[in-house]
């Protein structure tokens, strides 16, 4: 037996192809690869736009006039203003491009802060259990079930004290979104921690008498956070939507502080009735495209991480070596999505352990 199984030990792939996204890109086939590539391209364009907004944008985000005078309000698209101007007299194209910068800043701050807090809380709560765990679970469940936009609104009232000039509106928005996301990361990491805690390798460390901190950091933490890149992409799109929602109801960022798509849409609300379409269409499309791109990446990664959802190429007959296949590839022999256990524990979530919300 040893000799045959030696043959099947896979060679270690190169470092390059083991990088997170690169690896998945190679692994994917057909439509899945198409979706992943499309998502990566859109996301790449978004990031590049954010970085090079100062070079790309014809005007500043709060610029109302150039050497030839004021831009004028609600001007239709023209050679000078490709996307026209807003009711406040700003250049729509410039604000759309600068908006990418605001969006990416808020995403990064919000997601990094909430990952940090969520991971620490989830790890400790899931590992030690007890009353602290129970309290944290009930609290996070309650917060999680609550409309995240409302919570973000309440948070931004608190942070800015109702006055948008106290802290920069951008930071206020980012922190509001952070608070909304902490329960999500908490839930995912806690569920993973609880699962990993019951794995034989953790029990084995306990039998050895390894200290709690050693078990937590050497065995649980790295295994529990393996899904984070995936959650990151799924949540980034949510962060953009929440930011835009905040802006739309008037909790965003003053036009003089930064460009924000949601705020611009709010201002375009009355334009629509008079048939002025360019003030709403372009910032709206920007939101849709960015969320679409990031979600495509996230969904593809999610599918690829799940053998049940991953597509494979069909092979020609007679290709390949005769080899040990301990399970039928494609996983048709094993029980379903967590089998019955998945149905029995209401606490865990069916697909990736998270849902999408605005």
């Amino acid at each position, binding site marked *: *037996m*040893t000799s*045959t*199984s030696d043959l*099947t*030990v*896979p060679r270690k792939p190169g470092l390059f192809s083991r990088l997170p996204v690169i690896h998945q890109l190679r*692994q994917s086939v057909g439509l899945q690869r198409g979706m992943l590539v499309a998502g990566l391209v859109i996301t790449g364009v978004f990031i590049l736009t954010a970085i090079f907004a100062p070079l790309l944008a014809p005007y500043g985000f709060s610029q109302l006039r150039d050497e030839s005078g004021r831009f004028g309000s609600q001007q239709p698209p023209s050679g000078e203003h490709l996307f026209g101007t807003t009711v406040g007299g700003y250049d729509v194209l410039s604000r759309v491009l600068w908006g990418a910068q605001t969006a990416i800043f808020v995403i990064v701050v919000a997601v990094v802060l909430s990952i940090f807090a969520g991971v620490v809380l989830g790890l400790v709560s899931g590992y030690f259990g007890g009353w602290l765990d129970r309290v944290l679970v009930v609290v996070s469940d309650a917060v999680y079930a609550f409309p995240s936009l409302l919570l973000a609104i309440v948070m931004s009232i608190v942070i800015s004290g109702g006055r948008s000039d106290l802290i920069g509106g951008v930071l206020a928005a980012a922190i509001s979104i952070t608070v909304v996301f902490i329960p999500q990361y908490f839930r995912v990491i806690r569920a993973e921690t609880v699962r990993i805690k019951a*794995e*034989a*390798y953790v*029990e*084995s*460390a*306990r*039998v*050895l*008498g*390894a*200290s709690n901190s*050693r078990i937590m950091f*050497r*065995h649980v933490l*790295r*295994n529990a956070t393996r899904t984070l890149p995936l959650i990151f992409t799924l949540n980034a799109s949510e962060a953009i939507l929440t930011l835009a929602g905040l802006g739309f109801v008037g909790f965003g960022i003053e036009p003089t502080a930064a460009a924000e798509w949601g705020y611009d849409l709010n201002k375009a609300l009355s334009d629509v009735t008079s048939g002025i379409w360019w003030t709403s269409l372009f910032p709206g499309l920007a939101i849709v495209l960015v969320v679409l791109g990031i979600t495509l990446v996230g969904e593809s990664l999610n599918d690829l991480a799940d053998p049940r959802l991953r597509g*494979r*190429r*069909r*092979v*020609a*007959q*007679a*290709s*390949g*070596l*005769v*080899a*040990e*296949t*301990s399970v*039928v*590839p*494609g996983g*048709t*022999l094993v*029980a*379903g999505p967590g*089998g*019955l256990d998945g*149905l029995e524990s209401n606490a865990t979530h069916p697909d990736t352990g998270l849902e999408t919300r605005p």
Partner: protein
Amino acid sequence: MNNVLTITNLGISFATDAGAVKAVDDVSLTVAPGEVLAIVGESGSGKTVTAKTILGLLPETATMNGAVILSSKDGSSESNIVSLTKQQLRQVRGTDVSMVFQEPSTALNPVYTVGWQIAEGIRAHGQFSKKEARVKAIEILGRVGIPDPETRVNYYPHQFSGGQKQRVVIAMALVLDPGLIVADEPTTALDVTVQAEILDLLRRVRDEFGTAIVLITHNMGVVADLADRVAVMFEGKVVEEAPAQKLFSSPQHEYTKKLLAAVPHVGQGIVRAAARAEARAPGWAEQTPVVEAKDLRIEYPGRLGRHGFTAVDGISFSIRPGEVLGLVGESGSGKTTTGRAIAGLTRVTGGSLKVLGHEMHGFKEREFKKFRSDIGFVFQDPASSFNPLLTIAECVAEPLVVHGRASNPGAARARVNELLEAVQLPRAYGDRYPHELSGGQRQRASLARSLALEPSLLIADEPTSALDVSVQARVLELFAELQREFGFAALFISHDLAVVDILADRIAVLYKGKLVEEGTGAEVLGAPKDPYTQRLLASLPVPDPAEQAQRREGLRKLRAAG
């Protein structure tokens, strides 16, 4: 009469992450009406893939060539599964051929009544009204031995026991009276005593319904019990095909011989255990036991005012230095819980449990920690017993680092290499990740890790139950060798009497949390006193058709008496 099934030159390939893999290679088989053909092989031999092909159930990632000709029971029609359209396949499934699955609890839809599910199969082929389908469902449930089928037809799967669920699955397969049933490891998920009942039922299916059965199994005892003819598969090929009696008495192919030799027999270990007892130094029996349980009780707390669950209900036993105690029981007997309590993974709730002289009832982790270096533990599932992100060497070094024998995994490498050699793994395997090793290799590495600190007590919880027979034989042999060499005392937990017998000095039998019998292998297996042990022993099929027929008779008498 024609054969119900003729497979000619079947080949199947799969697309996998690692590229194309050929699972079945040029297989030809036939099954006559009313015949039981067993396809035997270890994991990866292609036996399950072959079985699924008969029903056209392969996933879309598979490509196949060759022919699978299926005849209807009355011989009126023939169809080639490989070339059928989806619609035609659907017509054949259930009427000409049907399937019995390995795991009855996952083969039944949890949200529908069994009656609905049986009727669904009937109605898929038209002809019957809802009422008629229900009548047929009740009738078939009765015929497979479900008591009170008129009521039970409205039950949901979770209201049946494991053995009854498998009966329901068999009823579903039988309801349209197909000429052929494919049974994929139909008893693997069941306890031995239940397995014997299901095997009886399958035998009745053949005799009463005249149904041919393709029996997919890795268990030679099951083959000996039920099969008329046997095909042995190895790496996608049929290496030997013979009538059951002939295969067991004079196997031709090397692989078959190896496979049969690897099957553990009850009674194998008795001589060895006696020799070891001889060799003990005088006064050995008076030594302080390594583990001593007195009236040990372990209860899992119930949630929110519900009653707790008593897993272990007042058992007493002891393990002396250098002695191997085999703990045998079926699922739910409390054997795993006992092992976990000794390792301090589960809390003792009553009685006394002394491990290395330390009382475990109400123990504190801090006080127990220094004893932990003296305890090793081998887990059941080789797939999850290693941290997937660490190399084998790092995993094996873990105990050395935790107990300060080495400052880091690198410093422990020399010792790790020694250990890997002791469990007969090449040194280079230390640099591999767990998923790059096979199940048997991982289980050996697991042994190496548990022995790193040269413990005086080793707990092995079903260490070989996830392994193939030939791999199991090697691991058991290794275990015995290491035990001789290191001289540790061991608690060896298993559901399989024959496995325990090979290693154990003494055997304890657990049943529903109670210790029903304890003694040397010769006492417990040679002349069991407790009726449960007798039944357990009689239910265990042996890999010899003639002897198994006798034992079956014995079991029948035992059941009739008790």
